[in-house]
């Protein structure tokens, strides 16, 4: 995995960071193209890089071989030894100069067209099905890490290091595995929130679809539905009946309503999967429509 690279990447701005490392917007000085550099510092011993890091990088590289149109390209991996105990692993990803948040802000006051929303949702779900079929759970899907190229192509980003669950799965007890935060339904819920977000007009930057907002769509779940092993009590929330969804997202068609409700189903085991969402009638209508106009 230690790969020497002759290509030179020059950081131009810091664009993210956290406990795992720092993210830079950088430029490939040869092609002029921007890239995203993600650096992670890992502890090393006489055996070299920890096996977990090697596996995570190997999985990302395997994903890359599929060249999926709806996830960002992994262009390069570099390992630099900093000292006997520390190595810096740098992942070079494709950088897209627009995210869904920016794209939605630019939408005309009348909102995005129905065709546009359908097309973007289809691409988003395609990317998600690809990740899920490779046992990668994103867990942090949001408009900021859904990228939109100037040609309108959706690319999922930030499904990176230390989020790959399949590798550490074996040692986890079933009750942890069964908890929704470790399984693919979390991503479908996020996608449902983003779906609703696309329909909302006159959006303001501060309105994020929060859990209480979603409750106003699905209504407060019953005592039976409320998970028993969580610290947050059902009594914390005001009992509200579900609002008609067309009141929250007035422009949506009936197939869209159906799909949205299936994605925002409270019980993760009842929630629609990404692959089934992609097969939903909502997307089939589009195909018939384009066929008839041909």
């Amino acid at each position, binding site marked *: 995995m230690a790969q020497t690279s002759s290509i030179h990447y020059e950081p*131009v*701005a810091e664009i993210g960071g956290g406990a795992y490392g720092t993210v830079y917007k950088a*430029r490939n*000085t040869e092609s002029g193209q921007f890239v995203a550099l993600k650096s992670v510092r890992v502890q090393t011993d006489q055996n070299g890089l920890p096996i977990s890091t090697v596996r995570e990088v190997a999985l990302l590289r395997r994903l890359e071989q599929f060249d999926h149109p709806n996830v960002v390209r992994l262009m390069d991996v570099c390992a630099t030894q900093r000292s006997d105990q520390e190595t810096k692993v740098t992942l070079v990803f494709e950088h897209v100069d627009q*995210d869904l948040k920016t794209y939605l*802000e630019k939408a005309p006051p009348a909102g995005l067209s129905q065709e546009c929303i359908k097309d973007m949702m289809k691409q988003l779900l395609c990317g998600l099905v690809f990740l899920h079929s490779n046992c990668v759970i994103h867990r942090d899907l949001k408009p900021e890490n859904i990228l939109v190229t100037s*040609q309108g192509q959706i690319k999922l980003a930030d499904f990176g290091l230390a989020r790959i669950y399949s590798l550490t799965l074996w040692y986890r007890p079933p009750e942890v595995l069964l908890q929704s935060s470790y399984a693919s339904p979390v991503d479908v819920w996020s996608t449902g929130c983003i779906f609703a977000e696309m329909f909302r007009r006159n959006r303001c*930057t501060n309105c994020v679809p929060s859990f209480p907002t979603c409750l106003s769509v699905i209504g407060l779940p019953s005592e039976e539905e409320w998970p028993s092993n969580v610290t947050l009590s059902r009594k914390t929330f005001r009992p509200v009946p579900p609002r008609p969804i067309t009141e929250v997202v007035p422009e949506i068609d009936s197939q869209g309503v159906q799909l949205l409700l299936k994605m925002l189903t409270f019980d993760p085991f009842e929630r629609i999967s990404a692959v089934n969402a992609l097969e939903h009638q909502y997307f089939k209508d589009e195909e018939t429509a384009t066929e008839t106009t041909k």
Partner: protein
Amino acid sequence: LIMTLEDDLTTAAATGNAAAVEYLLETGAHVNGLNRFGRTALQVMMMGSLSVAQTLLKHGADPNVRDRSTGATPLHDAVRTGFVDTARLLIEFQADPNLRDNKNLRPIDIAKLGGHEEVFAFLETE
């Protein structure tokens, strides 16, 4: 490592956070100030963010600043990434479409090489 206001400004611009850009400019960040990598906010902004571009340009950001390694201007990069509305805005604010980068390429050459037809068509009229 000491982070300056300009580091914060370039980070806000690069992540498309127009509200933070506006706030930092009002609290004293220099619009043409360099971050620790030697770049201004307009050079590193999220090219698709029209609101960030607008905020910076209205505050006097220099649209003809060149990348210290490649000689590219923000217009070269807006074109390279295919964002015609950002390219149009830069030109409205006096970006020179005839400047050449270190490879002797003008923005229109980049549009042609990158297959960005819409941007190419727009630059032809300039």
